[in-house]
């Protein structure tokens, strides 16, 4: 008796929906409560499937990272628009070499141009230039990088920022190389 009550008693409170769909249940029988129940066997299946997914994800991400690290790219020089008007102690965001490779150009107080990848080497948050501290800072996990070299000053980042070589050519600031540092095996 109790078992039959348990099977017929709805576990959800959507009684209005249930009443509204009663007429359709005869033609298309569908037990929502039974659908929401998960047996131990099904849960075990799901866990094994999840284990396989985690394995595939780990291998896939690792393979892509290793492939990207091993790939050598020949980069074409590109002028950074508006960089010549940059005042000392300020910064400018740009992309090099691809539009998705964000970078930051810093003009130090001495007038030198320094360019680095804008992605923090910890978890890829964008870094910004802090003029008063004269360093590049990551707001996500409080990492700091040197303005002069891009080396880690403090915080969790494990390696320096990507270094982009820049030089002045015909009055324009031109980026001509991007170096990923700190991945020596």
């Amino acid at each position: 008796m109790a078992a039959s009550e348990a099977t017929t008693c709805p576990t959800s409170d959507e009684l209005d929906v249930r009443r509204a769909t009663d007429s359709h249940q005869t033609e298309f029988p569908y037990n929502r409560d039974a659908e929401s129940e998960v047996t131990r066997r099904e849960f075990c299946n799901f866990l094994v499937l999840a284990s396989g997914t985690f394995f595939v994800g780990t291998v896939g991400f690792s393979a892509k990272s290793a492939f990207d690290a091993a790939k050598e790219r020949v980069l074409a020089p590109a002028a950074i628009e508006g960089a010549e008007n940059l005042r000392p102690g300020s910064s400018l965001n740009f992309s090099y070499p691809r539009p998705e490779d964000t970078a930051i150009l810093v003009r130090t107080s001495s007038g030198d141009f320094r360019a680095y990848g804008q992605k923090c080497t910890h978890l890829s948050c964008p870094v910004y230039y802090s003029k008063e501290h004269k360093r590049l800072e990551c707001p996500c996990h409080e990492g700091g990088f040197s303005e002069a070299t891009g080396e880690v000053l403090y915080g969790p980042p494990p390696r320096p920022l990507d270094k982009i070589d820049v030089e002045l050519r015909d009055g324009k600031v031109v980026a001509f190389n991007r170096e990923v540092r700190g991945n020596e095996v």
Partner: protein
Amino acid sequence: MKFRPAKSVGFSSPNRPVSRGRRSVAQARLALLVMINIAQMWVLAAAVEAGLAHEVGHLLPLCLASAVCFVISLTIFFWWKPVGITKRSINEPES
């Protein structure tokens, strides 16, 4: 002086529940699978962090660790099962 055969601890044979231990084994399987999943999540997070940090040397051990976890979970799923409900051991034929 009479000698009686030694009693086994727990249920004697006639009163022993048919599902003796099966539920424990099933729950242990579940617990192990959950723990393996948690370990694999940790390994995946470590691989993402190592990949983003270009620490390529850490990726292979992490892949191997994840593979070992996956093999263990497959082993548990396919071979480590409770015995049949009518059997008392895996060597006993179905009655």
